């Protein structure tokens, strides 16, 4: 089927026979920098999550509307729609929007997270271990 086993695309060698229900736990990674999308996808898939990516605010909103992600790793400095606008519109779409981890390069991730009610935040550059831990804390173990 088109929906490939996520583990098969990683270098991690995670058990390919993982339970089917975890396939529903999609982490949406939004960043306009393809390098960052790629490296975060690598990390989170290595951690065992299903990852979708979006490169701008509108793309992110469309994906988040089409299938509810379990978590969004949301960069604030996005083209077309800013990360803050994406978060606000998610509030219009969902009674209880998916949790968000705010990522920002401008040094104000904490303030922005507080403003949009995000679960947590990261300054760029961040440690991948910290991101992995925050995702686990939010979604539980994969």
């Amino acid at each position: 089927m088109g929906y490939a086993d996520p583990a098969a695309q990683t270098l991690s060698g995670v058990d390919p026979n993982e339970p089917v229900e975890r396939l529903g736990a999609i982490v949406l990674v939004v960043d306009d920098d393809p390098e960052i999308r790629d490296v975060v996808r690598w990390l989170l898939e290595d951690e065992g999550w299903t990852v979708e990516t979006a490169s701008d605010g509108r793309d992110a909103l469309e994906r988040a509307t089409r299938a509810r992600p379990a978590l969004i790793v949301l960069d604030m400095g996005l083209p077309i729609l800013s990360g803050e606008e994406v978060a606000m519109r998610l509030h219009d779409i969902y009674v209880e929007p998916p949790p968000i981890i705010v990522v920002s390069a401008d040094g104000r991730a904490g303030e922005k997270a507080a403003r949009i009610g995000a679960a947590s935040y990261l300054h760029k550059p961040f440690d991948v271990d910290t991101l992995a831990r925050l995702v686990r804390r939010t979604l539980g173990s994969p």
Partner: protein
Amino acid sequence: MAVDTDAVNILLVDDEPANLLALSAVLDGPDRRLVSAESGKEALRHLLHEDFAVILLDVHMPGIDGFDTAELIRGREKTKDTPIIFLTAETRGQGFISRGYSLGAVDYIVKPFDPEALRAKVGVFVDLFRKTGEVKRQAAELSDMTNFLNSVLESATDYAITALDPEGRFLTWNEGARRIYGYTAEEMVGRRDLAALHSGNGDTAKKVGELLRMAARQGKSEGVVEHVRRGGRRVPVAATISRREDADGLSIGFVLVARDITAQQRAETQRLQLIEEQAARSEAEAARDRLQQVIDVLPEGIILVDVHGHAFLTNAAANEILGQNLTEDGIAPFGDVGMLHLDGTPYAQTELPLVRIVQQGEVVRGEQLQLPNATTERQVPVLVNGAPLRDQSGKLHGGVAVFQDISPIKELERQKDAFLAAASHDLKNPLTAIKARAQILQRQAARMPGQDGHRVIDGLRAIDQTATRLTAMINELLDVARLQMGRPLLLDRQPTDLAELARQVTAELQPSTDRHDIEIKAPPDPILGLWDRARLERVVSNLVSNAIKFSPEGGRVSLVVRGEERDGEPWVALEVHDEGVGIPAEDVPRIFERFYRGSNVAGAIEGTGLGLAGSRHIVEQHGGQLLVESQQGHGSVFTLLLPARAPALDEDAAPSDAQVVGAGAP
């Protein structure tokens, strides 16, 4: 017989037509009209209709004789004085003559008469009649004139017209005088003199005296004097005094004509007042015009309001910035045109700068806000200064606001901010990719067997650490750029425990020295505030590094963290004590300047001098203070003071519990 209307009538009465004819012949003349009657009866008929200068009456007539006729003539009022000359042929004794005289005869003429004598006698009566008529006519004319003058005197009620004797006593007193002075003719005429109208007013008495003397000398004088009316009220009058003379030119007193000019004076006073007011007004308008021209030249908008907030003066710049003229009717007072704070929230009425200026006497300095332009409907950012207007006694009577369109400044700031944001984004994204990849590869390498894995891991860790150093440098560089571009730091405020932060910094720096003992005194409970954790870490790290660096002999470095209250507000303090070289007293005031280094360490101890300046900048952006106390040779104490109650974030959006987990850059 020529008929002349002015001719005098003469009545000839005789029963003998021949006698009548003879009389007519003798008496006829151009100035007389002869009327003949042949009987007493006929004579009486003529007398009914006409006046006669004289009657020539024959005594002997059939029917009513001359005496009877004379008696009848005398019995009638109209004719009782008409002279009668009896004509008789004889004089029959004294009795006859006296009867005639008793009947009013003026003369007897005995027939046959001497024509010359008769003509002369009749001529006398004709002349007499003419003169009497003249006198009567003159008397009638005089009477008419007197009546006319009296009626003029009494009708001229606006004029007091009085005759005075040479001593100044009133001889006449007209209705006008009664109205103007309030006294009646009975009270004044023959009883009082001009002094009654002065009532002790010396100036008036003097003035009237002059007028009288001038009138006596020149015949007439005029002037305005202040008379006193009955009851004491003063009446200004225009007086004319004329000398009266008798037929021989001897003075018999004066005529005073006075007109009440109260109303005229009042009108004149009002007219003068009006002229003065107009002059003052046009003076004020001219001053205002000049002021308007001056302030129209100024590039700043200026609004002047009165105590009610009504704008009474604005300049061209104000009108242009606002897109309307606030002095026009129907505009809300105090410039309440829908001002917004810079963050877009509306001003409450009591917050308006002009309300604070006019109602609280506040002086407003450098307040930034947004004003809507009524024409373009765009919000214009402005910088407002203002002060109350006071009069000479210090009483507040309005306010002035001066404001400047700072759109270009705001646009420049926006461009700077956009540039800084882009620079941050563009520099940090590659760093993020580098660090993340290096870290993931370390994970992968850890799963590789043998020595190879370790070497790869070491290399990747070195890359990661280098990227971390680069990140710190870029962060500091961006802050310096902000400082130099005059832009405030965008603080990343988040709940931060200063005690925990101090412990972390201590733990990081202790390994860098074995000559120093870094100790920390902090309460067990967190010292919390909404602060920019990463930047405060930089500040504390900088202070502790300095303490180590500037005590080269080693020793103790103590950190003290405590909460304290200042002016009833919660603050926190973090002190860094060292036992190092200290700072010379003359350098203390300057150590927070950029690139400044103490005279005792420059060249001896490595450093750029940027650290303290940047640290103070960060602390001040937090609303705090960075202080120093030092004694050269005995060490220094740097004290970081921060308000614990930070400006609230948007509370609606703030997380309700402590779910926000910080993960600041290392």
